[in-house]
Structures are given as structure tokens and as C-alpha cells.
């Protein structure tokens, strides 16, 4: 799967029917898995000829840019291009090389100043079977963030450049625009941008302490029920809010917290329990009918950890819209990921929303005269700008993840040593991870052998929270969470990059099946 820039002379020869080889190569490239590019600087030339030959530019644009991405040509590229004899073509190569160190240029001009990139004529390209082979021998990473960037490149570059030109870096207009979009998407009254998913959890819990208890932090005697099979931030946030995590076991079929275990914990600890913090792990929603019912019956708050579940739904309703708050992460690898840390809190509660806004900005409406112990935890404007470019693609990306998961389900289901998670009929899973259980197999050995086949895998998570040093003497457990412990020993996550085509998924499946 190569990154290929096609020169204007080849494009024109192909579409004006002047050269069969150019036509064939362009048609084959358009049908292949390769990524196709032109640079912004090439558009002027293309436009001249489109005008000259009376093209319907609107139609041309729609068809052509369905396959080709446009690379931003920067001012620095332009300055450097002047060092070359043919500055015009050098500008193309310099811009292309920025995003494709291993890129290929297809042109009729063998003297193209390629800046070290491989240059092929259309005929050479046609004879280069690797370019059109269905077989992919490149390693398959769990995620390919560069590929995702290239897919949304034009929108992201534009948003970033506009944001920088505007220079409103702290709570700029992009933050409120994103907040409005997320609130609309999730279906809540408020969405408040914060600096990370972890801070979303901490600030939510702190805001609930201020609102419900009239104090800055929870007490150690206040227990918040959560899962021990999650990222450390979930339990850590409870500690940072002053409360005690009360870990209950998971349902091994879904990896999510088991509502029956929550009921047992409430029976045991009664009025000490103040809230529930369910985690929609791997993108699969927790059974929110049960969670909300238990919370209402016992007068408990619910803070949803939606770090992995942007776009996931329970019974048609978005995760993050059930609890007192929903806490999202925009960590780069997330389904909706920024280019750094970021997070969002959703809520329908006006009072909570106001406290959250105060806490994220040093603890006061007036930052020079504050009321609460606050944080410097705002969402960066630049991150918001990037997320605005990406949010319009979230449903497409989640659908792609779901298709990959469905392909894996279909092709792995008959392997005796692979146990797949179950998806509840009310759950719309968005597969932040596609995670399987390995039965009676040495996981390290499986990982090593898959790595030899070029397939990257990860273990989320190798240790339960209650066994970590940080939680020693700082947490409570309702018995030994055996299912969670077993999951830490058996789980393995497979590549789930939404841009991966069927051939890559087939290679993953064949890799797993070949292990016997």
C-alpha cells in the first residue's frame, strides 16, 4: 500500500484519452489500496487545462477528489523549492515528501526533482506488480494514526492554519463550537471541554462533591463503585477526588462491570456507597438500564467513563447521556482522537455544568478571586480545531471499525481457543478495541508469533487496578474479582485501524488461524 503522487501530465494524458498506458495506470491506481495525492501547488496547472478543455469542474472535482487527497504546500516548501533548478516541480516533491518519506511519484518527466523519492514513468508503474498486488507484506500496526491523518488532511490542515492565524489559543471559538457539536451529537444540554479524559473524571467527581455534599472533596468513607478491569485513570480519578474506589467484578462475556456485583456491593457497604462509575470498555456500552435503575433505587450518582465509547449507544441512546455526567477522552488513539490530550464532560445538569466550568478554569468565575480548589484543565483551542475536522467523520470511522469487527467475528468464531466477547442486543459497540480471550494458550507466545507475522497486538489490561501499588490500602473489593483477574491473563487486542481494508483484515485473520 504505497503513497503515490501522480503528475498533472499523466492525469491529463489519461483523462483526455491521449495515452492508453496513463489511462490504465490511473484506473488501476484508483481501484487499488494505494493512497493517491496531488499537491495544492499542482491545482493551478490542472485548473488551467480544465478551463481550456471546458471541463465541468464541479463534476470533475467530485470524481477526482473522491480518490485523490490534496497535500498542503507550505511557505517553507516554497522557499526551499527556490534552491532547485526546477522550483515548480521541486515544490511538489518537497510538499509530498513531508507526508510520504517513502512516497512514489508517477510522471512522464524522468528528470523530475524528486528530492530522493522514487520516480516512475506510467509504464514502469504498470509493470511494478507490487503497486497493484493484493498481498500486503508490510507490518500491520494496531492503529495507523498517520494514515488517519492523511484521510482527513485537507480539513485538519485548514482548521489548524485558521486557528493559528486567529491566535485565540485559550478557550477560543473552536472550543465552544466543538462543545456545541458534541452536546448535539451526544444529546445532552451541556458539553464542556477539558484537558483530558482523566481530568474529565476528576472534575466530574469533584463537581459532584461540591454539589451533593457541599465540600471540595469526597471523604475516604465515601465509596464509588467501579470496575477493576480498566485503565488506571478510572480508579485514580476516584482517589484524586478524595473518595475510595470500591471494585466489583466484571461480566466475563462483555468485560464490563457486572450489575449483579454492584447490587452485592451496595448490600454490603450500604450508605457508604455514594456513586457508580461504569466504564464502557473497548467501546461496548455497559447495561445502562440496570445501572440507572440501581442508581435511582439507591440514590447514587452515575459518572460514565466514556473514554473509549464516543459514538457508542445503549438502546439507541448515546453513552454519556445516561449519567449525571459523561466523561470522554480525545487521546490520539481514541475513536475521536486529537493530536495530544483532550477531553469532554457531557451533562444535562445546569448546576453541575457551571461548577465544572469553574473547576476547569482555576476554580473561580473570576480567576483572580476564586471560590474552589480548581485546575488548569481547559481543552486547548488547537485540539478543538483538529477535533472539529475529525468529528464529521466519526460515524464513518465507527462504521469502519464495526465492519472490521464483524469480519473478525465471522472468521475467528470457529477457532476453539479464541473466545469472543458477547455484544448485548441493545448495545451499539464502536470497537475502540477488538479484544479476544485466549483459552488454554500462552498469550506471550501468541503475541510473539503474531509479531513475527507482522501483526501487532496489545494487552489491555495486564493488571487489575486493585492489585496495583497505588490502590493498596486505598481501595475496597467485594471479594476477589476473579473474572477481571482472568481477563488480565487472557485478553488480546487485534489491529482495528478503521482505514484498514479487507486484505489487511484477512491477513490478521489468517495469522491468528495459522497458530493452530
Amino acid at each position: 500500500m504505497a503513497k503515490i503522487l501522480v503528475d498533472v501530465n499523466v492525469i491529463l494524458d489519461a483523462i483526455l484519452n491521449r495515452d492508453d498506458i496513463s489511462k490504465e495506470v490511473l484506473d488501476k491506481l484508483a481501484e487499488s489500496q494505494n493512497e493517491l495525492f496531488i499537491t495544492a501547488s499542482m491545482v493551478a496547472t490542472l485548473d488551467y487545462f480544465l478551463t481550456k478543455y471546458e471541463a465541468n469542474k464541479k463534476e470533475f472535482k467530485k470524481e477526482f477528489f473522491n480518490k485523490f487527497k490534496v497535500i498542503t504546500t507550505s511557505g517553507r516548501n516554497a522557499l526551499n523549492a527556490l534552491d532547485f533548478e526546477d522550483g515548480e516541480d521541486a515544490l511538489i516533491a518537497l510538499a509530498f515528501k513531508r507526508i510520504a518519506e517513502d512516497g512514489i511519484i508517477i510522471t512522464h518527466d524522468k528528470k523530475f526533482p524528486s528530492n530522493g523519492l522514487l520516480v516512475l514513468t506510467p509504464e514502469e508503474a504498470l509493470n511494478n506488480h507490487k503497486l497493484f498486488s493484493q498481498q500486503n507484506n508490510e507490518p500491520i500496526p494496531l492503529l495507523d494514526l498517520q494514515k488517519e491523518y492523511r484521510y482527513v488532511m485537507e480539513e485538519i490542515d485548514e482548521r489548524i492554519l485558521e486557528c493559528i492565524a486567529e491566535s485565540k489559543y485559550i478557550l477560543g471559538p473552536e472550543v465552544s463550537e466543538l462543545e456545541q457539536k458534541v452536546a448535539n451529537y451526544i444529546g445532552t444540554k451541556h458539553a464542556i471541554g477539558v484537558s483530558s479524559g482523566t481530568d474529565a473524571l476528576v472534575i466530574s467527581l469533584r463537581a459532584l462533591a461540591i454539589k451533593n455534599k457541599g465540600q471540595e472533596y469526597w471523604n475516604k468513607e465515601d465509596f464509588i463503585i467501579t470496575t477493576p478491569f480498566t485503565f488506571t485513570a478510572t480508579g485514580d480519578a476516584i482517589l484524586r477526588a478524595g473518595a475510595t474506589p470500591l471494585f466489583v467484578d466484571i461480566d466475563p462475556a462483555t468485560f464490563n462491570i457486572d450489575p449483579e456485583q454492584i447490587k452485592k456491593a451496595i448490600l454490603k457497604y450500604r450508605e457508604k456507597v455514594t456513586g457508580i462509575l461504569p466504564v464502557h470498555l473497548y467501546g461496548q456500552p455497559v447495561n445502562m438500564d440496570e445501572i440507572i435503575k440501581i442508581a435511582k433505587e439507591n440514590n447514587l450518582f452515575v459518572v460514565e467513563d466514556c473514554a473509549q465509547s464516543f459514538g457508542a449507544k445503549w438502546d439507541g441512546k448515546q453513552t454519556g447521556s445516561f449519567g449525571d455526567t459523561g466523561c470522554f477522552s480525545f487521546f490520539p488513539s481514541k475513536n475521536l482522537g486529537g493530536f495530544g490530550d483532550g477531553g469532554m464532560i457531557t451533562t444535562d445538569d445546569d448546576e453541575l455544568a457551571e461548577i465544572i466550568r469553574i473547576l476547569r478554569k482555576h476554580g473561580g468565575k473570576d480567576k483572580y478571586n476564586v471560590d474552589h480548589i480548581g485546575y488548569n484543565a481547559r481543552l486547548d483551542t488547537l485540539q478543538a480545531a483538529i477535533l472539529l475536522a475529525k468529528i464529521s467523520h466519526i460515524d464513518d470511522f465507527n462504521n469502519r471499525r464495526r465492519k472490521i469487527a464483524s469480519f473478525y467475528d465471522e472468521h475467528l468464531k470457529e477457532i476453539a481457543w479464541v473466545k469472543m466477547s458477547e455484544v448485548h442486543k441493545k448495545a451499539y459497540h464502536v470497537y475502540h478495541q477488538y479484544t479476544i480471550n485466549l483459552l488454554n494458550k500462552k498469550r506471550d507466545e501468541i503475541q510473539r508469533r503474531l509479531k513475527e507475522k507482522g501483526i501487532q497486538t496489545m494487552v489491555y489490561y495486564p493488571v487489575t487496578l486493585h492489585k496495583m501499588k497505588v490502590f493498596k490500602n486505598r481501595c475496597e473489593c467485594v471479594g476477589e474479582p476473579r473474572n477481571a483477574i482472568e481477563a488480565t491473563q487472557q485478553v488480546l487486542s487485534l489491529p482495528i485501524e478503521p482505514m484498514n481494508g479487507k486484505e489487511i483484515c484477512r491477513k490478521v485473520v489468517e495469522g491468528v488461524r495459522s497458530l493452530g
Partner: protein
Amino acid sequence: MKVIAKRTKDGFLIPFVGELKNIQNEEIEIEIKISPFLKESFTEKLHRTIKKFPKDKLNFKEEWHKHLEEKYSG
């Protein structure tokens, strides 16, 4: 036997196939099944958006530079 027919502006061009029976006859019968879902190729779609076509052989780069010279030389 699989025969690849290329699309031309007059229709599909059936290539000469040596293994056909009665190939020496003036007329031969070939059964052709064309899928109703046969889709236009990428370049065909783009070609359809263009109204005029150059008659002579052109060097696009030279043509482009000539245009720039005319545009900016006043």
C-alpha cells in the same frame, strides 16, 4: 474462454481470438454477456466531464509555461 473487450467510443472492441472455431469465416458468432452493473472506470468518469479535446500532440508543461509567460509578460 475469457475474452477481454475494451470500451471504445463506438462500443466494446472484441479482440481477435485465434482459438475460436470457424475463424476463417466472414462472420462468426460470439455470445457476449455484459453485466448490467458494469461500471465506468475512474478515467472514463473524468473524461465524461470534459467537452473539448486537444487535436495535436501537446507537451502540457510547455503549454502551461507558455500560458504563464503570456499571462505575466503583460
